[in-house]
């Protein structure tokens, strides 16, 4: 989850998010260098006593400030396109989960083998236990097996919502009447938090998403327990 006054991304929990983090660092370094150069040029322009009233053209500098930005853009575009295609690769998911957005909670359906479905409501602040996170915890988590490709089909029952988990690098709009698909792999066990990312009414800020990644045998135990309780 995010920690207070955090500026950067959360730690990656999926291979795609790791790639996104690396690309972000790469782009940010380039932006930093450009900013440094521009700042230096501004200071130099402001502090110079040199004037020349007779400059008409200068082919050299025109070539430099045309070619250099083109090179920089290529340096940014190539990794960007690589990640774009990487995110769209066809994978063979081991599990399909349907995430349905409602006002104002999420419901999850695991229908690959049995019919397992449950709602996931935010735990109100007054009901939190010590150590739990305000506005992020839910009564039922979406449990997934770790290191397995997971497909999530996202839709909504009423208005637009958006299913987002930043540490997994996943965000997909939940549109009523439409089925959107996203996929990810949780590289490590853990609990990953997200929040609804499309304005959906009064309690838009109070319908979080919690994904819990566990080893496969724990996932099987959990799903058996959930089916028994259902």
């Amino acid at each position, binding site marked *: 989850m995010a920690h207070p006054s955090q*500026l950067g991304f959360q730690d990656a929990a999926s291979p795609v998010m790791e790639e996104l983090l*690396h690309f972000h660092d790469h782009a*940010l*370094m380039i932006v*930093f*260098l450009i900013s*440094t150069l521009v700042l230096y040029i501004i200071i130099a322009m402001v502090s*110079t006593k040199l004037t020349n009233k007779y400059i008409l053209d200068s082919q050299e500098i025109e070539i430099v400030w045309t070619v250099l930005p083109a090179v920089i853009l290529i340096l940014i575009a190539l990794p960007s396109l690589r990640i774009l295609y990487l995110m769209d690769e066809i994978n063979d998911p081991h599990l399909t989960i349907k995430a349905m957005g409602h006002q104002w909670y999420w419901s999850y359906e695991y229908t690959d083998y049995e019919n397992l479905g449950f709602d996931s409501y935010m735990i109100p602040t007054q009901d939190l236990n010590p*150590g739990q996170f305000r506005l992020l915890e839910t009564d039922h988590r979406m449990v997934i097996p770790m290191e397995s490709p997971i497909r999530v089909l996202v839709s909504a029952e009423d208005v637009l919502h958006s299913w987002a988990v930043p540490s997994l690098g996943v965000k997909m709009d939940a549109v009523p009447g439409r089925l959107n698909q996203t996929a990810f792999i949780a590289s490590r066990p853990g609990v990953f938090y997200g929040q609804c990312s499309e304005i959906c009414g009064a309690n838009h800020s109070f319908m979080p998403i919690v994904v819990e990644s566990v080893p496969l045998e724990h996932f099987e135990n959990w799903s058996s327990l959930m089916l028994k309780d259902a």
Partner: protein
Amino acid sequence: MLHTKNKTQLPLMGILDIQNTPCARNSILHGAGGSIVAGLVHFLVTSRVKRSFDVGVTGFMLTTLGSWFYCRYNNAKLRVQQRVIQEGIKNKVIYEGTNLDPTRKTKGDA
């Protein structure tokens, strides 16, 4: 008790978080060193102050970029190796005792 890591975030120029970005700190330090060396050498040779500053800034950018890409490339190679090793360890555990076990000594009979 929940322990949160105290990540002090003071981005350089409000943009680059040096402490938490891999390779950033070393690149900036190399860049600073390269900038000082380039500017100083140029000044000692030409005695032109303003141009030496320009050379220094150019040196900073080139050295930072060079150090950055070199470090990131090495890190990327290490990451690929790490993935290969992880797959190998996982497969070793799965395939242990079977025909696909890479550590199995062949006994001569087909």
